[in-house]
């Protein structure tokens, strides 16, 4: 039930986003968006290490961003 609610919440958000996106940012205006520190995960190696540490010690699998595979935990 919660899963369904979450799914429909995101779909609704997506529809809202689509409706809001009426004044697109031009390519020459995207300089700041292209910066290293505006990436979702600026340092993939560090992001992988972070997520591996956090989620090998927590019970809810899945995460935001990149992570290491395998196990390496106890």
């Amino acid at each position: 039930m919660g899963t369904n609610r979450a799914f429909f919440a995101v779909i609704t958000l997506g529809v809202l986003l689509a409706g809001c996106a009426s004044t697109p940012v031009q390519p020459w205006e995207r300089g700041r968006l292209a910066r290293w520190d505006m990436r979702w995960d600026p340092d993939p190696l560090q992001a992988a290490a972070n997520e591996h540490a956090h989620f090998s010690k927590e019970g809810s699998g899945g995460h935001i961003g990149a992570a290491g595979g395998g196990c390496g935990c106890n």
Partner: protein
Amino acid sequence: MSASKLSPSLAALMGAAAALTSAAHAQTAAEGGTTVGYRFNEYGEDSFDGAAIGSRERYKVYSQQFQLDTRLPNNAGLDVTATHEVMSGSSPWYVLRGADARPVQVLSGATIREHRNELRGSYTIDPGTASSTTYSASYSQERDYRAGALGIERSIPLNAALTLGTGASLSHDIIQPTDAALYDRVRHEEKNTFSAFGSLAWVIDKNSVLQAGVQLNHEDGYLSDPYKLVSVGSDILPDHRPGTRSNAAVLLRYRHAFAHPDAALHLDYRYAQDSWGVVSHTVDVGWYQRLGQGWQLIPALRYYSQQEARFYAPFFGVDEHRFFSSDYRLGTFGAFAASLNVRKRIARWEFSGGIERYHAAADYALGSADSAVPGVLSYTRGFVGLDYHFD
């Protein structure tokens, strides 16, 4: 190894989500160079300070990561990452009912010493654009655990502001516990994981981007932890969990660039729920501050809260449950983490380093805990790194 670990399939998938979304908000600077990177990480858990039997010295992990990220002539990108870890220390084994029904944590001996090697590769067509396709593969091996995963991801621009990301992956894990005969553990078990996700990334304005996504994950096979035991009545029995687990999560990520001060704000939120009854919330806040002359300072905070699985308890009465586990990672707890990273760019070299303090406690959870979680932990982690950019 641990049965509640992050599956490599899901890890690959969400790595893909990260890769997709840099293209998803149509960042225009498709980096064309080659970068090699190295990181050394040290992780150390605090000694156990509650009522316990066994060694109180918990886990330490030293890991090294190597990365090659390069462009190929046919407008494709290749990313290869190798990881080597050395792990040692004791870990929660099972929980006894002490005086006044208070839990007494039993820890394994501090003799565990394991190595893990992982190789991960991805091949991306049209990297750095809003319409890229990535194929990925990974393999991880420990003495008692092997895992392989394959994945595919695709990003599709819907219009100038919106990009759709989709992906799926499969993984196969093989578990062969050490000392199986000595401790009457399972000899050979396997599990499969299927993951899928979809996301929408929106360029809000010239300073901010937002991503919303859903990820689904289904595991099938041996999902118990062969190294953990459970106190059931007067017996000590192996950890016993259901053979399937489905997980759904919603992700929201926001980035905002500031001109004054010259910085970027990162806000992430994740809600997850699974078929075992575990519900979690994760909030990450990061501030990427540029200081001039190639210096960058990155403070960050993280909060995590989860509600326990239906079959979690520190110990059980006789025939109380069909499934039972006293793994603290399935209990109710919350955690705060604070980190500070520093980066310095000098010509083609880039140095980095940082430290994180993570503190978990049952009291930090949203809502109340039904059961005690004696094994919950805190740790300190640090890293140093070096990158070289060829172009």
